[in-house]
């Protein structure tokens, strides 16, 4: 099978490296078949009907969501169980974060692990239907998951068949209310909450929406239990996690690490450029930092919170020493501004305005005082959209101004960037997908 995903975990034995979800990946150039999958992990354990087993195990494992929000998975499952009517399970494989590759890597290498997780979660919450949402732009990935689903049907595996859906791939289309809206026949745009999906989601039923990596961990907890899961990680953050390390590193790719591994150790796995000074943590909704300021911090919610950061979707982008962080931030902001659902005023008008301010700063062509204008705008956007798209974009822009403050002040006075003295980097660094056609939300 040919597909776009080529980078693989090099199977490193360095500090923090782990191989649970990624077990066997270094020897594979395609998806594991059901037979290979069982060879790696053994068959799923079947619980007798009506046992609360898995919910308690997931709670004891302290599994948290791996899609960016880090919410306790068991809490979400219990909320769905407590809802009215038979539940629905939705696996979120949209991965609209352009710098992240971990979800597509997981689905392309170990689709059965995710499907096991969907099946186990569906059993645990008593779901009557199950769905997996994938981006329409990644047809190779859709083929791969469809093949795995067909293989399981032939083997008579899943009591509840998993429906595979292809959604338009806008940045906000991976938001959970957007998935629900689309599955209910609407556009893949976020909706106003409440009601939240766990209360009233697909077909107005309580709906459990989990990131595909979260479900893969859940599949392993169902097999090996909570105690095993917590053998990796720390007290505060258990298990392992997938990260995507890109930018100025010699071995970019997807790395599985123990939760609690420091930022510096994760970067080391990928071989960072020694002179690199700045890193974007979390993704395009993430935050920029001096490498030195965060290198010793655990790449977890609690570890990064004092630095005003979070692991988000597990992205670490190393800014090349010769590149200008403001220029990269301006490009990301322009992209995020174009990727809103065009529903809420502060997002429709605020994000492009901030993107303009950043672009003026980055280009050293200020019109008035873009720095203080932007600071004022950055303060009034957060929390005012239906979804958190504007909040994430604003956080990224604010962190760029903080981290590249010296550059920002120099640019504001029409001086060239400090980075410009070290040589010019003209090539685009961070991937910025071409926006889809305006009307393509369905």
């Amino acid at each position, binding site marked *: 099978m040919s597909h776009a995903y080529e980078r693989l975990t090099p199977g490193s034995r360095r500090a923090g490296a782990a191989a649970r979800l990624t077990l066997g990946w270094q020897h594979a150039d395609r998806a594991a078949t059901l037979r290979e999958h069982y060879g790696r992990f053994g068959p799923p354990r079947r619980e007798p009907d009506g046992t609360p087993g898995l919910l308690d195990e997931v709670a004891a494992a302290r599994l948290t969501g791996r899609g960016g929000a880090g919410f306790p998975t068991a809490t979400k499952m219990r909320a769905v169980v407590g809802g009215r009517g038979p539940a629905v399970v939705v696996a*979120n494989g949209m991965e609209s974060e352009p710098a992240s590759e971990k979800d597509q890597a997981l689905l392309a290498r170990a689709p059965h692990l995710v499907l096991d997780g969907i099946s186990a979660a569906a059993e645990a919450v008593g779901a009557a239907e199950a769905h997996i949402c994938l981006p329409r732009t990644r047809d190779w990935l859709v083929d791969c998951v469809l093949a795995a689903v067909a293989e399981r049907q032939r083997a008579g595996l899943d009591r509840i068949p998993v429906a595979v859906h292809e959604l338009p791939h806008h940045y906000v289309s991976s938001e959970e209310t957007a998935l629900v809206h689309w599955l209910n026949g609407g556009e893949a745009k976020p909706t106003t909450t409440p009601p939240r999906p766990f209360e009233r989601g697909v077909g107005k039923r309580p709906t459990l929406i989990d990131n595909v990596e979260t479900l893969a961990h859940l599949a392993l907890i169902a097999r090996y239990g909570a105690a095993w899961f917590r053998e990796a990680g720390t007290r505060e953050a258990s298990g392992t996690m997938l990260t995507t390390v890109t930018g100025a590193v010699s071995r970019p790719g997807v790395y599985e690490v123990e939760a609690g591994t420091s930022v510096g150790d994760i970067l080391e796995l990928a071989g960072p450029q020694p002179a690199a000074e700045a890193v974007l943590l979390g993704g395009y909704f993430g935050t920029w930092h001096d490498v030195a300021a965060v290198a010793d911090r655990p790449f977890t919610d609690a570890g990064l919170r004092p630095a005003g950061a979070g692991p988000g979707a597990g992205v670490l982008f190393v800014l090349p020493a010769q590149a200008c962080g403001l220029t990269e931030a301006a490009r990301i902001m322009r992209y995020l501004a174009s990727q809103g659902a065009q529903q809420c005023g502060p997002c429709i008008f605020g994000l492009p305005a901030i993107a303009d301010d950043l672009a003026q700063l980055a280009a050293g062509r200020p019109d008035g005082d873009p720095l203080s204008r932007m600071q004022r705008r950055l303060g009034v956007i957060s929390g005012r959209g239906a979804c958190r798209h504007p909040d994430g974009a604003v956080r990224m822009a604010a962190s760029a101004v903080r981290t590249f403050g010296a550059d920002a002040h120099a640019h504001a006075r029409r001086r060239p960037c400090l980075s410009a003295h070290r040589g010019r980097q003209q090539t685009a660094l961070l991937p910025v997908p071409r926006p889809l056609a305006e009307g393509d939300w369905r």
Partner: protein
Amino acid sequence: MTLKLQLDPIACSGHGLCADLLPELIELDEWGFPMLADSVPPDLAAHARRAVNACPTLALRLARTRHELTTRHQGATRRRLRAG
């Protein structure tokens, strides 16, 4: 129990009538979209109701909430409940 203004940001199209009628609690940003104060003091309840009724898109709502359930908490819950 306390009164609180709530905005449906998707329904709001920035007519700005609410800020005209209730400048004590509602301010417009530079693009004309309302920014709301956290809670409505009892002496402004009648004015708040008038602002709610004046909204052409029915985007503004006056809700009774418990003290502990402020916008900030609701926002945090929503953020934490986002997929995954």
